[in-house]
């Protein structure tokens, strides 16, 4: 089985600050990490390889520095990796990102399964996974918490829902996004780290993945971010006074008035 895991390098949110003037993220000097949800996707891919055999390829679209994220994850036991990088990708929204990644997956060829994280902790849209599936016209399942079985071109899995889980059967090839309940990611091994250090990571540009320039980067991104702001923090607390009984009555009537429950 040929598995591709899409991973994204994101700023370490623990350190992210917002520029109060421009209301944008201050990215300078902020350390980059692998999107935490993608760690679960990589772990699951390696476990699938251990269960069913095959190979695991990592894929990211990003600037040249994103190579560091690929190397970090290669040390966990993925076989190889591809970096898709081109100046024309700058300013991609989820539509352009999904298209670009889908084109890279086409170029990789013979892929049975694509794994993504549930969402990226910076963009947070959770749209890239389904977007890739749409571009490839493949099956899709979000929020996967367990892969029960793969066989005869069909995958049985559990999808986490607010009120329990769904049991699904989807045909391969498919794209899935995973939640952190699916596994506990392993730590790297020294042999893995040494191998990862030496591996060649090919870089593919827009032309090499055969992409339509109109659908890339800013020109392929209909999303316009007109303004970013931090919602004003308003908290009007009131501490009720008086007899306990009167307080409870006030509380109940306030709850009814505000329609909270």
């Amino acid at each position, binding site marked *: 089985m040929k598995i591709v895991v899409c991973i994204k390098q994101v700023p370490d949110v623990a350190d992210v600050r917002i520029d109060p003037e421009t209301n944008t993220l201050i990215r300078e000097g902020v350390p980059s990490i692998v999107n935490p949800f993608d760690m679960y996707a990589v772990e699951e891919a390696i476990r699938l390889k251990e269960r069913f055999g095959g190979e695991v390829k990592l894929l990211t679209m990003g600037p040249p520095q994103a190579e560091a994220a690929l190397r970090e994850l290669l040390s966990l036991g993925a076989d190889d990796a591809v970096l898709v990088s081109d100046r024309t990708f700058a300013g991609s929204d989820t539509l352009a990102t999904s298209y670009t990644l889908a084109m890279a997956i086409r170029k990789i060829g013979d892929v049975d399964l694509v794994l993504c994280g549930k969402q990226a902790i910076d963009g947070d849209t959770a749209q890239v996974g389904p977007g890739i599936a749409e571009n490839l016209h493949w099956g899709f399942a979000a929020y996967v918490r367990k892969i029960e079985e793969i066989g005869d071109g069909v995958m049985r899995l559990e999808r986490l829902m607010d009120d329990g889980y769904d049991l699904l059967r989807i045909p391969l090839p498919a794209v899935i996004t995973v939640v952190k309940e699916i596994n506990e990611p392993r*730590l*790297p091994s*020294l*042999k893995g*780290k040494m191998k990862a250090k030496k591996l060649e990571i090919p870089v593919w540009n827009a032309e090499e993945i055969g992409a339509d320039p109109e659908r890339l980067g800013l020109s392929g991104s209909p999303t316009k971010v007109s303004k970013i702001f931090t919602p004003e923090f308003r908290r009007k607390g009131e501490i009720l006074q008086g007899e306990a009984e009167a307080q409870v009555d006030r509380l109940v009537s306030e709850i009814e008035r505000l329609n909270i429950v």
Partner: protein
Amino acid sequence: MDYFLTEEQLMIRDLAAQIAREKVIPVRAELDEKEEFPSEIMKVLADSDMFGLYIPEEYGGMGGGILENCIAIEQLSRACIAVSVTFAASGLGCYPILLYGTEEQKKKYLPRIASGKSLAAFGLTEPNAGSDAGGIQTTAVKDGDSYILNGTKQWITNGGEADIYTVIAMTDRSRGARGASAFILEKGMEGFKFGKKEKKMGIRASATRELIFEDCRIPARNLLSREGMGFIVAMKTLDKSRPGIAAQGVGLAQGAIDEAAVYAKTRIQFGKPIAAQQAIQHMLADMTTQTEAARSLLYATCKFMDSNPKNFSKEAAMVKLFATDTAMKVTTDAVQVMGGYGYMREYPVEKMMRDAKILQIYEGTNQIQRNVIGLELVKEYTGKTEAVPVG
């Protein structure tokens, strides 16, 4: 301080630190409280290739030396030395095979130890033979193709948990120390049993048990080296592994400094952080200086030993002595810096100070280290009548 470690050594350091941070620190207090063996952490260390750091690649190891092993032990010890001794004692049990094993013995046992699939242990000490290891009473009598072992080893780290044991026993009592021999034993051999787990002051998550031999019959091919070589095997093994105990000391001391320094900056008394008091600063300054000195001696000693010198008993003893005395002092001072809070189990320095004491006792007490250093020194100066500087 930058010790100009190689890229590979930095990789080992960072991964060991990650394991300490993510897998050891969250559970160390609970393991200590419950006196629970750290099996899961040993599995993580095995999966990360740590058990084979000093074992040659042809036997499944990483092909490094004592320095690589000590870098890992140091980082683990920042978090918990009960965990790091469990890890390091496997190396202690392995060295006799690595140093004196036949090709067949190495092929059979080293890959299992290097992969971490099997833990190893080393059995020398007995109820009546501690510092005076020459007094051991366990016997091994040759019987055809076998040896039959009888006796009891005491306080053996990883006893009962390890699969592979290297044990020293007397094959010829009439020859005294020259009548001892070293053997490889495996858990499950007939007549090989374990005593109860000891209750200890510190390193409570580590397993310390008796090894009991009752007409324990082992194949004669499990003899290491030759009959009569037992004490040489034991002494050379301890020489090789003593820097590992020093690495425990350096890591533990650093862990205590980290706790005390963070605390001193946040604890307010008399309207300011206690870290602003010169008395506290001076204590922290001494702790840091002594620990850095111990680390420098450790790395220098490891590099020296990895260059395969003929004799390194003195150097190994010096680093064990200095780093572990430092750890005892630094952990005691860390408790002092933190006052009553430091004495409470909620804070890790309480355990660190309890744990530190063992470092001055096992693998040769620090008095015995001074004996070794003194003896070597006297040898070096034998016949010298003038103090003329050379080289």
